């Protein structure tokens, strides 16, 4: 069954590092599965819990957040601000039956196109193992 399952992944990526890495992956002609939909943000520090919750409630099978390595943030420490917030949301979603593995935080620098490709492919594989998100098959109030 899982062979046919094509997960939908929302990737919230920062403009300066992970988005640039995705761009680099593209220009380097590295291909990665098309399940990932990128949302470009100026910084992971602007990620509010509701972005992640919204993605899950609208049926995303996984959410990946990509930002600059600690110390490399264009805005000094936006990525560090994001870290705890994302841990907190992950903990909350876990209580409602969302496997913690569906939410991933990854630091991918602007020069790491290959890293981006590998991470996305690996994340999609993880989500395929987990199967479709529990909200997919039911009405959400």
């Amino acid at each position, binding site marked *: 069954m899982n062979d046919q399952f094509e997960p939908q992944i929302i990737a919230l990526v920062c403009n300066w590092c992970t988005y640039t890495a995705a761009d680099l992956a593209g220009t380097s002609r590295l291909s990665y599965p098309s399940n990932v939909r990128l949302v470009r943000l100026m910084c992971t520090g602007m990620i509010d819990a509701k972005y992640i919750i919204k993605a899950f409630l609208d049926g995303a099978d996984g959410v990946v957040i990509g930002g600059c390595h600690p110390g490399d943030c264009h805005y000094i420490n936006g990525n*560090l601000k994001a870290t705890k917030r994302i841990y907190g949301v992950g903990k909350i979603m876990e209580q409602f039956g969302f496997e913690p593995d569906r939410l991933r935080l990854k630091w991918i620098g602007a020069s790491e196109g290959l890293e981006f490709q590998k991470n996305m492919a690996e994340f999609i594989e993880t989500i395929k193992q987990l199967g479709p998100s529990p909200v997919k098959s039911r009405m959400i109030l």
Partner: protein
Amino acid sequence: MYSVLKSEKGGVFAVRSLLKRLLTENMVDAVFVAAKTPYSDLPMPTLISSPENIETADPLAPVAPFNASRQASILLRSDTGKRLALVLRPCEIRALIELVKLKQCVLDPAILIGIECKGRMENALFLEQEKQRSGISISFYQDDNLKEMICSACNVCDHFQPVGTDLTLSVFGVQISTGIGVEAESETGTDILKKMGYSDVQPPAEREAELRDLQQQRLEAKSVLMEKTAEDIKDIKRFETLIANCLNCSNCRVACPVCYCKECVFVTDVFAHEPELLIRRAVKRGMIKMPTETTMFHLTRLAHIGHACVACGHCTSVCPSGIPVADFFITVGSKVQDLFDYEPGRDINEPIPYLVFEEENQ
């Protein structure tokens, strides 16, 4: 420093005389305390400046129409140079401390007088009981039947002793019909008691045991509730069933003492969806419930303030659909609090976890 305030008419009168002296001896300019208005038996938070009006104060009544910390924070928004004594319950003080951390108010003008709390009843139940037997502010502390009428959040509360106060009004180990204990927790508190001429005495012998027993009883009840609630929300289907009757009225948000945003994101354009979007969603999913975003609302509120939930239970009390909002806030909130080793209201110097970050965090 522990003293006993005696009054043959009961603890409430002892508290009133203490508050009255604060005013008459010019130690404070006004007292913020729950007091009955001329129109109802339900004590409301009031700001009293004239000593004779202290007679209406009823801080020991087992009821709280809402968490008074919000009103207290309005009075403490800035330091006016006037001294205020605030008589608050433990959950109200903890919420107030969270609001100070969120820069909503300052404690400089405040003398915090905490009450050891044995729980509150729902408003309607209190009014009914008060009609049946007057003097519930005393009988509540003696009659075990009344103690069982406290609301569900109070039943699982293990923070019945206030922290971070100047003075604590102590009801444990005390015969409330003869007076009340008072403990000075700070230098300001000690000064007040000394100035008033109270002597330092040994706390009653039963006090520690009574506190320990209640603590154990409450912790047991809490773990039962958390286990049950965790089961009720363990997958999204069960959670949807739990909140299915939610009207999106936002009462829980309004009642929440730590949900402090002046303009909640849920009343902004972010969630004022265009009809086109709603129709598109309906087409995609077959049907959608209106208003939408019910689950989103509860989960987002959990994510925004779960770490600061003081478990006062007012969200459940105000829910017109009887949804046990506090139950899942207590359950999920304590998971988040454990994750960050954070306890709301524990210490005014303990930073909110989301506002600090360490460089070594990977």
